[in-house]
């Protein structure tokens, strides 16, 4: 039994945090949103050098064959810094999809390039992930359903509430795979993507809490920091509690994805629900405590708020995830 990070995982997270802090990720994100993805692509190559893009890729194709918990550690840090780019797709979902399909030709063609960071990949899976994120930046765009996997042809970019998410609908391109293996592989990819998404939400939630604690300690009204008022304190305490108790669900879902396929869907859904709920509470509270300045673009709070709003509803809505747990519980799957 081990449900906390190892020293190596702590160091990995700290290294990512240091790198993303030093790289001035907010500026990179603004340029990504403003049709200048080059600095972001540089940052993604540096993440590749640290091993992030190869975590979920088997060693046979140049990756690290890492545990899903390592993917969770990385994605939480990317969410913490609101890094732009198709993280859940390229780091988690596509490696899971290709390896689960077991099609060596597809693996040979794409996994080494995803692992090395040469290729950023993205994916649309109707109905849960209707848009391919960053389809105009990614060099591999896929479109999957229960029966087929195809290349995707991106339509025009649509405006997301999170302007760093360059989303587009995708039309069918060339057929890559069909048949009975596709459904389970897509389901596995959805779980891997949802888990990576949940990890980003937890990271974003923590960033919102930290930023808000700093602000509440500095902003003075009635002659005292607003963080001294109980009405503010208690809201922030509730945010901290939600984030604290979402994390073990995230780790347990990573364990299930690796070792317990029969409960993976249920456990990933529990993690996604808890992380999305916690992050949304963090977002709502962060804005409320900041007051009007939180609405102003200059505060920078918006990058995290809009990321949370978008991620909380993709890779499966809260209702869809609750429905998966309901199904498991109705079948008697309690432990």
């Amino acid at each position: 039994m081990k449900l906390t990070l190892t020293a190596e995982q702590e160091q990995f997270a700290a290294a990512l945090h240091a790198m993303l802090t030093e790289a001035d990720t907010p500026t990179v994100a603004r340029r990504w949103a403003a049709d200048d993805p080059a600095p972001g692509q540089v940052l993604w190559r540096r993440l590749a050098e640290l091993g992030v893009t190869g975590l979920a890729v088997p060693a046979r194709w140049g990756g690290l064959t890492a545990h899903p918990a390592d993917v969770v550690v990385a994605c939480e840090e990317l969410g913490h810094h609101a890094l732009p780019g198709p993280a859940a797709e390229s780091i988690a979902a596509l490696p899971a999809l290709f390896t689960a399909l077991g099609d060596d030709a597809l693996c040979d063609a794409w996994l080494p390039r995803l692992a090395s960071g040469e290729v950023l990949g993205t994916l649309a899976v109707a109905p849960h992930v209707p848009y391919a994120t960053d389809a105009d930046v990614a060099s591999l765009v896929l479109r999957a359903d229960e029966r087929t996997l195809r290349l995707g042809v991106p339509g025009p970019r649509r405006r997301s509430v999170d302007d760093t998410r360059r989303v587009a609908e995708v039309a069918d391109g060339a057929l890559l795979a069909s048949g009975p293996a596709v459904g389970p592989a897509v389901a596995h990819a959805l779980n891997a993507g949802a888990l990576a998404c949940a990890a980003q939400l937890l990271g974003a939630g923590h960033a919102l809490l930290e930023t808000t604690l700093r602000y509440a300690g500095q902003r003075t009204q009635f002659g005292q920091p607003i963080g001294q008022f109980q009405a503010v304190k208690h809201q922030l305490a509730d945010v901290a509690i939600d984030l604290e108790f979402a994390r073990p669900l995230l780790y347990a879902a990573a364990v299930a994805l690796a070792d317990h396929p029969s409960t993976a869907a249920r456990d990933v859904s529990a993690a996604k629900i808890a992380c999305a709920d916690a992050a949304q509470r963090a977002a709502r509270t962060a804005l409320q405590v900041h007051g009007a300045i939180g609405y102003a673009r200059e505060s920078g709070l918006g990058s995290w708020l809009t990321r949370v709003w978008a991620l909380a509803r993709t890779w499966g809505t809260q209702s869809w995830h609750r429905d998966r747990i309901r199904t498991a519980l109705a079948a008697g799957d309690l432990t």
Partner: protein
Amino acid sequence: MNLDLDDETRAFRAEVRSWLAANVPATQLPPIDTPEGDLAHRAWERHLAAAGLSVVAWPTAYGGRGFSPLQWLIFEEEYHRARAPVRINQNGLFLLAPTLFTHGTAEQRARLLPRMARADDVWAQAWSEPEAGSDLAGIRSRAVRADGGWLLSGQKTWSSRAAQADRAFGLFRTGADRHHGLTYLMFDLRAEGVSVRPIHQLGGATGFAEIFLDQVFVPDADVLGEVHQGWTVAMSTAGHERGLSLRSPGRFTAAAGRLVRLWRRAGPHADPALSDRVVDGWIAARAYQLHSYGTATQEAADRIPEPPPRPGRDDRPGRTGSPTSRGGDHAASMTKVFWSELDVALHEAALDLLGPYAETGGLRTDPTGRGADDGDADAWLDGYLFSLAGPIYAGTNEIQRTVIAERVLGLPRDRR
């Protein structure tokens, strides 16, 4: 990361499960606050102790088995899953004992713990006073120096188990300083000068009482920690009460399991909004369970270092002891808010599933399938009344949120 139990822990779980299956009384014991119930629950504790299962995480010297925090969590899961009797000595086992391990002398531990493990002494807590609830440092009951000990005078209230317990522990004023003029004392509830008046609760039970003290003598040997240092000692006990020790996750995973079974019986009658609450209750109970697994199995190097042993405290448990003895009191505040809100939510969902049958605690059989199963009639209603006390006792959740904001999150302190 993994969630697998090692062979020793799996074997322990199997042992506990089969022992409980063979020994938990088929019918519920009489209510704990009646004379018959008191005797029956004390007898149950002796039975548990004889089987080596009353205090599994304590050192063997005191009647325990020296098991790890994780094994203690597993024991609790099995205990609640089997719906075994309420622990009549929970104030002693889960609140006083961890404090004795941290602050007591070797003499106190040797004298008090084995008797506690067999329920020879049942303990009550004596914290609150009429004018000192959330503001615990405002207590007025006094301990005055006497030959060889102290004389206690004053009034305690909301004192759990006091109507039937043998002994009690609490804070008494020994000096003027608000926090540094308090001393932690243990006293005999049958001593001269003690009178106890039971208080009838919402559900009619008399689980707590008022204690009136008039010049009650307590020997020096029953001072826990240093004189005037009672606040520090008490805060460590309060930490245990807030954290895992008193309300272990097993209690809530068992309740969530029963809720899911109740919901399954309602089947197509259950409305979707109610089903969502069942799902959310199950998620939260599991979150608490997983969180405690993480705390209990964190490698020694990751843990907050324990203070070095002091003279006379050579037999402090190292590997053993309840999980909360390893965490800070302030993190326990997060746990306390979480489990107390969870408990209310689970019971509210159950009552809503029972619908119009909730007011009578459900029916065993009824045409709509809404009746409670597993002999649960009354259990949900009683449990609901009890759960409502959770956000109030052990420091209200308002106090806990302030503690979290100030001590965990570092926000500036209130003007109190």
